[in-house]
């Protein structure tokens, strides 16, 4: 009991750091849990952006202070950290994955806390359900639709292209599946089949052998890096002739290392440029990182913070920084260009889809080549789905 008391006192003392005229942003980062391989560069990107902004004199003359916590993809710790940040005077939150973002949807709505996350689930874009949630990438469903659109446009044969789906039996993998199926049908794809490959699976041969008999032309892969690497390598091993389209968390520079030549020629969806791209923001990132290549997650983290800072700046110009003013400021953004790192961002009071654009990269063992930047129409019936 004494130990407890001591711990609680320690927490209490540390939680009440002296207050200064700073803009406090909470950062829920994932540094040690199951998604830490991508969570770490994302958090580094956010921190780098704050460093850059503070060097430029902060936002509206005030420096940004990041309150960082590693919540290890644990919902309970995320909620605890959120409440702690709130007590420390946080004005906006940079969140991370599906688990924490969704667990906090109602909290941030109640507390009017603008939240930018890296969980791009489509249902977070509907302000009716998630009024204070934002993100700076096209949602999972939109990305997938953009890919289907692009592949169908470039389809030369007479017959309908065959599409197969491979995804984990996990909320994140399941999220875009209904949208993909519906849109594929609309575009005239033939749905050949679907298989489950778990996020932690080390072998996908049996699933891919079943797919091989169905001869899909394209195969959607919704997973994370490790499962995607397994799928690509096993497909190469059994000689499966299909073009894989991997979703945003299933392809990055790490995948190229893990899959090697098995990645050649497949497609990867992204919503930001890759390191070394010729855009203004990359000069800043290259300077900050001393030319050391960073993963795309880093760049998205940077962009997420940059867009949030723009909303903070607009809100600060008009008056005090509060949840509603920051939200309102974010909702005035129209084709805001975050230094070319992502497609232009717009938020509307009734539509939080940042844009309808995906970057489609061709994957090779040594590089990611931009193949196309399809932009879809902002259809109201897609909002939230």
């Amino acid at each position: 009991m004494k130990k407890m008391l001591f711990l609680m006192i320690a927490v209490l003392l540390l939680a009440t750091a002296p207050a200064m005229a700073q803009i406090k942003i909470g950062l829920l980062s994932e540094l040690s849990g199951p998604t830490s391989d991508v969570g770490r560069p994302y958090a580094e990107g956010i921190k780098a952006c704050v460093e850059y902004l503070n060097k430029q004199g902060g936002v509206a003359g005030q420096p940004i202070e990041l309150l960082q916590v590693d919540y290890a993809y644990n919902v309970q710790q995320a909620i605890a950290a959120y409440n702690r940040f709130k007590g420390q005077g946080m004005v906006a939150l940079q969140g991370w994955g599906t688990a924490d973002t969704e667990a906090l949807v109602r909290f941030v709505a109640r507390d009017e806390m603008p939240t930018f996350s890296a969980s791009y689930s489509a249902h977070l874009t509907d302000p009716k359900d998630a009024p204070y949630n934002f993100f700076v990438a096209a949602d999972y469903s939109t990305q997938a639709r953009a890919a289907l659109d692009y592949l169908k446009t470039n389809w030369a044969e007479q017959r309908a292209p065959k599409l197969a789906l491979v995804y984990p039996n996990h909320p994140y993998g399941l999220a875009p599946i209904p949208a993909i199926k519906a849109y594929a049908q609309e575009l005239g794809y033939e749905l050949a089949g679907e298989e489950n490959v778990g996020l932690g699976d080390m072998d996908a041969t049996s699933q891919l052998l079943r797919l091989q008999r169905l001869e899909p032309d394209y195969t959607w892969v919704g997973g994370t890096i490790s499962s995607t690497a397994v799928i690509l390598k096993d497909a190469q091993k059994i000689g499966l002739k299909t073009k894989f389209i991997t979703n945003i968390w299933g392809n990055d520079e790490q995948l190229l290392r893990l899959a090697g030549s098995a990645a050649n020629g497949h497609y990867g969806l992204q919503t930001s440029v890759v390191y070394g791209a010729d855009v203004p923001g990359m000069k800043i990132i290259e300077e900050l990182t001393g030319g050391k290549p960073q993963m795309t997650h880093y760049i998205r983290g940077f962009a997420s913070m940059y867009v949030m800072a723009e909303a903070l700046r607009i809100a600060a110009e008009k008056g005090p920084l509060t949840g509603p003013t920051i939200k309102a400021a974010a909702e005035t953004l129209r084709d805001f260009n975050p230094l070319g790192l992502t497609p232009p961002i717009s938020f509307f009071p009734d539509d939080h889809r940042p844009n309808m654009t995906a970057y489609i990269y061709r994957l090779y063992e040594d590089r990611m080549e931009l193949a196309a930047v399809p932009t879809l129409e902002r259809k109201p019936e897609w909002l939230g789905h």
Partner: protein
Amino acid sequence: MRGKCGLFHTSYAQEARFFQTGFLKFSLGLFFIALLCTPLYLSNYQLSMLNMINIAVIGAVALNLLTGCCGQISLGHGAFIGVGAYATGLCSLAGWPFIPALLFGGLVTALVGMIFGVPSLRLKGIYLAIATLAAQLILSYVFMHWESMTGGSVGLGLDAPAICGLALDSDAKMFYLTLTVAVFSVLLVSNILRTRHGRAFVAIRDFHQSAESVGVNLFSYKLQAFAVSSFLAGISGGLWAHYTMYITPEQFDILLSIRYLAMIIIGGMGSVLGSIFGAVFVTLLPEGLGALAQWAGAFFPNISTYFLAMREGIFGLILVLFLIFEPEGLVHRWRLIKAYWKLYPFAY
């Protein structure tokens, strides 16, 4: 009892009493008064921790009744908590008042727990663990794929609970609710342990054949243990659902089951007080370590990221150290401390 230099029981009723001494009653009373006043002097963050502790206490006490007292290991309690969360949530969405919804969620979970408890008649130890693991996996699958009910991967959004028109929409208000339910759960389990049922559970744990030969119906009592334990787990889940106001299948995975097992092992198997200690410890430890990491990060800003990430490793290490050095749990250490102070300063 007055005038005696110690505690001497002269009847079984005396021995089974909750509060053995006036001092205990007094100090517990003070503790509760202090607890009831916490919203006055604690911050929102600290209150949210207390809420999570209260919810964890209910789950840990529930699991301890089944695993610690009745000896039926369960790796499915994370999912049982999920069943309670979804059942309560769905009832609330259907317009039920909060209390009936919470109780109904508990009853549904009790039913589900009993169904998955059936194999316990034939299976023991590690085999039962695997059977309950199956429950965890099956239920996780149901949460994710029964989309019309559970919302599937999108999850279920709920509102803060309202009791008689009073919306419990802040941590302070929620604290009184979770505390009340936690106290009721602790009293319920403590009382069960003092009855024929509780003694039957312990007899089954100690040796099932002896228990059966003295007239304990194994099947019936094992199922009762599963039912009561799942009921409380469901209540804990219902509270959690309404506390977070958003439930997704991810929250009730195998890691949650393991977390609860860790709580009762750290706290002390078979002890109600131990479950409380375990729940407090496991809930606060990551926060304490996080604070420590933050503090260390202030001195080494460049590698603060690594300090933060080390926390999980330290958490694991502490669990291992506990198993080696404190195998009987925190409650054992507590008893030693009490015994030490009882005789202080004349230890011999």
